[in-house]
């Protein structure tokens, strides 16, 4: 096979020339930093709030730096509150979601992008339509369906409806459209089968969109609240956001626990950011697609 593909562009930086410190560059970094500071402001307040007592958070005028810093909120999460079960559920569901979504969506996205078949337009239209309807409308019918399959209160019930996200299909299709046909035709001429082309050429070229989809799918699953709550029906199946809502909600003899909420929110964010950092390494300039002239 004489197809030139590169599956290891990881060492290449973009752009591929020595970086000089130009005034333009400094201005660029400065602008980006200012924007970043503005963007992160609410998050910083939240982070600092995790170290404050409830009373201090409610104080007006607001304080930024904790005047009476406390680790009580975090201690409550790790010690008083058994996170392990909910953490496991969240991780498990998120990993399954990412694996299935990446596989299914890339396959059907490929079919929709580069293969011709009857019903293609209808399929795209129907898939996209599901994105256009607010989730609350299909909530009850979906639940009734899951109940009819006896999947309420099981992991299956929590996984299956999430596997049909139109977002992933559309994302993969759009990226795959950019793959040059000449590359594919050359492979076909050389006798490669469609599955071989898919696995050997297309997927390696799709590192960036796959990483993107992984990030979004992980985040969607990890932050999911309503559906896991409704389907789980047993505390042993609850995920972290559900547990967070329960643990911090006001009851008869206490008000809303802002400190716990802030600390909990910070804890929930951390894994998603870690996944993001890991995945965004794949946003690398692809020299691969230029193998064919």
């Amino acid at each position, binding site marked *: 096979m004489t197809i030139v593909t590169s599956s290891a562009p990881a060492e290449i930086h973009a752009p591929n020339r020595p970086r000089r410190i130009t005034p333009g560059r400094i201005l660029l970094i400065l602008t980006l930093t200012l924007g970043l500071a503005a963007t992160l402001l609410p998050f910083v307040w939240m982070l600092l709030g995790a170290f404050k*007592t*409830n*009373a*201090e958070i*409610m*104080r*007006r*005028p607001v304080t930024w730096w904790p*005047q*009476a810093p406390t680790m009580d909120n975090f201690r409550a999460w790790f010690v008083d509150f058994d996170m392990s079960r909910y953490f496991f559920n969240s991780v498990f569901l998120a990993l399954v979601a990412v694996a299935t979504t990446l596989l299914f969506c890339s396959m059907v996205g490929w079919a929709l992008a580069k293969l011709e078949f*009857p*019903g293609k*337009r*209808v399929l795209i239209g129907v898939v996209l339509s599901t994105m256009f309807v607010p989730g609350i409308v299909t*909530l*009850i019918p979906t*639940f*009734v369906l*899951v*109940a*009819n399959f006896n999947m*309420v209160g099981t992991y299956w019930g929590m996984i299956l409806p999430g596997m049909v996200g139109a977002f992933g299909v559309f994302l993969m299709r759009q990226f795959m459209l950019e793959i040059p046909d000449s590359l594919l035709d050359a492979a076909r001429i050389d006798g490669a089968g469609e599955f071989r082309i898919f696995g050997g050429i297309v997927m390696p070229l799709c590192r960036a969109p796959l990483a993107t989809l992984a990030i979004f799918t992980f985040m969607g699953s990890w932050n999911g609240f*309503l559906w896991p*709550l*409704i389907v789980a*029906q*047993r*505390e042993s199946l609850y995920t972290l956001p*559900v547990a967070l*809502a*329960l643990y911090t*909600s*006001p*009851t*008869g*003899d*206490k*008000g809303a626990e802002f400190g716990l909420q802030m600390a909990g929110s910070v804890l929930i964010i951390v894994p998603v950011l870690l996944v993001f950092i890991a995945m965004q390494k794949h946003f690398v300039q692809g020299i691969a697609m230029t193998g064919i002239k």
Partner: protein
Amino acid sequence: MSGTTARRAAIAASVAAVALTSIAACGRSDAGESPGGDATGTVADTATGEIEIWAAAGNGDALRTLGEEFTTENPDVSITVTEIPWGEIITMNQTAVASGTGPDIVMTGADQTASVIAMGGLAPVPDGVMDVDALYPAAIASVTGETGLYSVPWYVETRFLFYRADIAAELGLDAPTTWAELEELSTAYATRPGGEFGFGLPRPIENPAQVIVPFTSQAGGAVADEDGWTFDTPEFVEALEFYQGFFERGESPLSETEATFENGGSPMFISGPWMVGIYEEMIASGAAPEGFTQESVGFVPMPAGSANNNSYIGGGNLGVFASSDNQESSWLFLSWLQEDAQQKKLFDLTGSFPARQESADYQPILDSPVMTVLKEQMPDTVETPSYPSWSQIAEQIGIYAERVAHGELSSQDAAKAIQAEADSVGFGW
């Protein structure tokens, strides 16, 4: 290509045809069906099997503890408790009823019970489960459906007036006991040097029906009778005027503000007993502003209008899910929870006020100043209108109250408009 277009059109047409034929197959039968079925069940002598309970957040542990005690007397039963957030109770009941799968016992807030009754999610309460006369009338009203009682009140709560006792003393005023005194104190608070607001009422976008309905009752009226809604009445208009008056005079903030109770900017509000604990914590942790001590926190029953000083009743109700397969044992458990000893135990566990009136004669309650006020207020309560359409109408009240508070509409016109909306929606059964 005409071929594909024709094919696409054919597919669309057939999908539509299928959808429409299945809809056409729908149709209401004339036979009326009362929610939850007609027959009232029976109560078991001893409980057996499994009982699954959906508890609202914060009540899970109490139910587990009480459940364990119940199991020692009824060893053949096992009780599991799942906590769900308050805000999702309606949604979870919707999905449970729609699919026919659900728990055995369902907990609802006093303002949610009517909706769940309307869904057909609750079974009627059999005779003998609860002693209706022993409970607060407003609590009984919150579990009443069109054809009977559908849940058992478990605990109750109500709101009363909190005010800055220290500032009032400085101004030479006592705790208000009437509307006039309330207005006087509010104005005094707002106009004092360094003062900002006088009364932190719920803002028009924060469900003001929660105070307007009690105000209506205090003025001698009600928002509904057996035949329909009664908003176009002098009492409701009077309540609306009273509410919006505080905003008109600038004594209540219309938007987010930095004025709080503890910094004296908003020295009065209506709330419940847990606020005492919050302020205790604030003072103990040193986060309280200068001069704010536990003595600053004053609380008294609601000031009276021309008729009474009714406040809103809230609380938790426990009912048996209509599709439950273990109803007899569930009723036994609920009946047991109603007993005096268990009601007192509940207070020990969560600080929730017993729905059983006599259980309030309990030393820890009597010893607590704030609980004593709660006890005093509790008989003088009015329930959230227990109709499925209430939340929709409460929203309309909020919308129109906001327009009145902004000076866009008069209270009379608002009352008429709310009446019109309410009439078009009905009770929702």
